[in-house]
């Protein structure tokens, strides 16, 4: 009798559970964001999160996104990848299976974007990375073919490496360059190699090509070696928490050459951590807030009103990612993962806050211009444009 009672209870519970699990028609558009909120680059994650929240608020304030004949509000789910590759992957998994998002925006840094993009590709969910510039993010590592579900809102490093190498030769008149980069991180390694290739192709000589591992703090040995090689410019394509240490240690060793950076320098935290040592350095990035087009100026104003500070490149690119997503959803006409992906793949041209993006022949990497900024009086100042 007792056993029968137990079986009955279990049956009731299962029935209740099954009844609760009905497939309801979605009433909102669910978007996931994976950002580096803690870990080694929290400023990047913070910018991404703020821009995402601003973008979603703007969409919802106008009543939502028009899809077919219904207006859907957007629901945002933000996950922290804690600056770890495995957590990026598990965050993607959680957003796809538990929160059942329509698309994922993020992660930003290449070494976290790649694991998440593999999960998205495997689950056939659209992923747009705002800031990852290394080509590997949109290429399937096993087959070498482009991924179908992973897109980006920024330019790629072969282009950026060329821009920087040409700037070093023409703008800084350098013939000998030294590079110090993180060998354990895809982005740093990739762009260091692209830079070296272009620099040497154009007749320059890379006199020192030194490496370190992520989380290293002492660069004195590598910098002493670089000093011995007497370069005209030192290229440091590293993230904003490492560059200040590298520049300070270099200055202490009396290295007089100017320093050149890449888009990983774009965060304002770089200036906070670097102080005066970064004065006069140049770096390439995605947009210049002080030389912005009217569409960009509206975004910058909205960001300043909402949060008080200027948006950096990560914020601008995240905003553009949401813009791309919104256009894709509207053009798809339905809230279906595959339809939205297909609609995004059809977009040929998009005018964003960070400039014009051209997606050629269904490629998921836009062709865009870069800007070179200079650090002057403790802020980023527009210096030059570089077109593809």
């Amino acid at each position, binding site marked *: 009798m007792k056993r029968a009672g137990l079986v009955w209870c279990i049956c009731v519970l299962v029935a209740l559970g099954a009844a609760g699990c009905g497939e309801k028609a979605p009433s909102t558009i669910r978007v996931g964001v994976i950002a580096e*909120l*803690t870990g*080694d680059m*929290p*400023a990047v994650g913070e910018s991404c999160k703020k821009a995402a929240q601003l973008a979603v608020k703007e969409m919802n304030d106008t009543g939502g996104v028009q899809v077919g004949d219904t207006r859907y509000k957007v629901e945002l789910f933000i996950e922290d990848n804690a600056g770890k590759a495995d957590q990026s992957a598990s965050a993607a998994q959680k957003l796809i299976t538990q929160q059942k998002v329509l698309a994922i925006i993020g992660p930003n840094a290449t070494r976290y974007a790649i694991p998440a993009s593999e999960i998205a590709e495997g689950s056939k969910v659209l992923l747009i990375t705002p800031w990852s510039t290394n080509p590997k993010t949109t290429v399937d590592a096993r087959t070498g073919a482009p991924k179908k579900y992973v897109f980006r809102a920024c330019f790629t490093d072969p282009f950026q490496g060329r821009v920087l190498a040409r700037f070093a030769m023409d703008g800084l008149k350098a013939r000998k360059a030294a590079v110090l980069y993180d*060998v354990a991180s895809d982005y740093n390694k990739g762009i260091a190699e692209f830079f070296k290739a272009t620099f040497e192709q154009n007749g320059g000589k890379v006199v020192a090509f*030194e*490496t*370190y*591992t992520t*989380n*290293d*703090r*002492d660069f*004195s*040995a*590598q910098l*002493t*070696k670089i000093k*011995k090689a007497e370069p005209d410019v030192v290229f440091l394509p590293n993230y904003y*928490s*490492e560059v*200040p*240490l590298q520049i*300070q240690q270099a200055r*202490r*060793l*009396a290295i007089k050459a100017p320093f050149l950076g890449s888009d990983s320098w774009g965060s304002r*935290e770089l200036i*906070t*951590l670097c*102080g005066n040592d970064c004065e006069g350095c140049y770096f390439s990035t995605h947009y210049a807030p002080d030389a912005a087009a009217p569409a960009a100026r509206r975004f910058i104003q909205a960001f300043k009103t909402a949060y008080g500070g200027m948006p950096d490149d990560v914020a601008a690119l995240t905003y553009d990612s949401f813009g791309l997503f919104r256009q894709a959803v509207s053009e798809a006409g339905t809230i279906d993962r595959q339809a939205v992906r297909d609609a995004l793949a059809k977009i040929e041209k998009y005018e964003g806050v960070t400039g014009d993006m051209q997606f050629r022949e269904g490629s998921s990497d836009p062709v865009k211009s870069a800007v070179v900024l200079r650090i002057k009086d403790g802020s980023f100042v527009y210096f030059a444009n570089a077109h593809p």
Partner: protein
Amino acid sequence: MSYLLQQVLNALQLGSIYALIALGYTMVYGILTMINFAHGDLFMVGAFLCFLSVVFLKLPFVPTLLASMVGTALLGVTIERLAYKPLRQAPRVSAIITALGVGLFLENFTLALSPYPKHIPSFVPDISWMLGDVSISLLQIVVIACSLVLMVLLDLMVRRTMTGMAMRAISWDKTTAPLMGVPVDLIISMTFAIGTGLGGVAGVLYGLAYPVIDPYMGIMVGWKAFISAVVGGIGNIRGAMIGGYILGAVEILVVAFLPSTYRDFVAFGLLLVLLVFRPHGILGKPTVQKV
């Protein structure tokens, strides 16, 4: 020649920091036969205490050093009393797991309070001198000098004072020492205090030399210092000092003369080879298990 001298200076600076942290590992092992895996994170707490004293209390160098040393020492003693003392009779594994747990707790607690990497404004004037082609900064001199002075003081204390003798007695024979009137709990607490205090000083010197600190900075440095302690002979204080300088020297000189990508590979390879031929470390004594 000046290139070599510059690299030697770099090695001395790095080695001093490894040596100070290695001392903490070795002292605790010597007295309790337990590896305090939380020591790297105590070093990180020392660096954060340095940040707090420089930024909020605006203290100059020596008071910052003392504040950090005392703060970390107190934390070390508290951890010892709360986490390790109850496990003194427990299997070794339990103590190790607890140590790892304490380390994780410290990392995540600091992460919760300070998720962003922090910058420590310089609290020692940024002067350097050029001796020919070699650049020597005040910073390097401060780091190397502080470490050497503290190491000499520690060595004197262990060899010439009653407390030091008590420490050596306990590490020699833990059961008989209390029978001879040695206050074991007190001496163990003092050992922890001194060991972690030195870790705190290392945190300050590290914050001085590499002024960007974050909650996970203690992990890699802690492991390297632990390896230095093992290479020098774990449990032996002079061994820890030597081990620290050896690891610093190997890391820097490998980069100086080989492509820098080989650094970790060659450095740890050499240490592995050393341990194969001398498993108890350079100054360690081979321990015989008497049944």
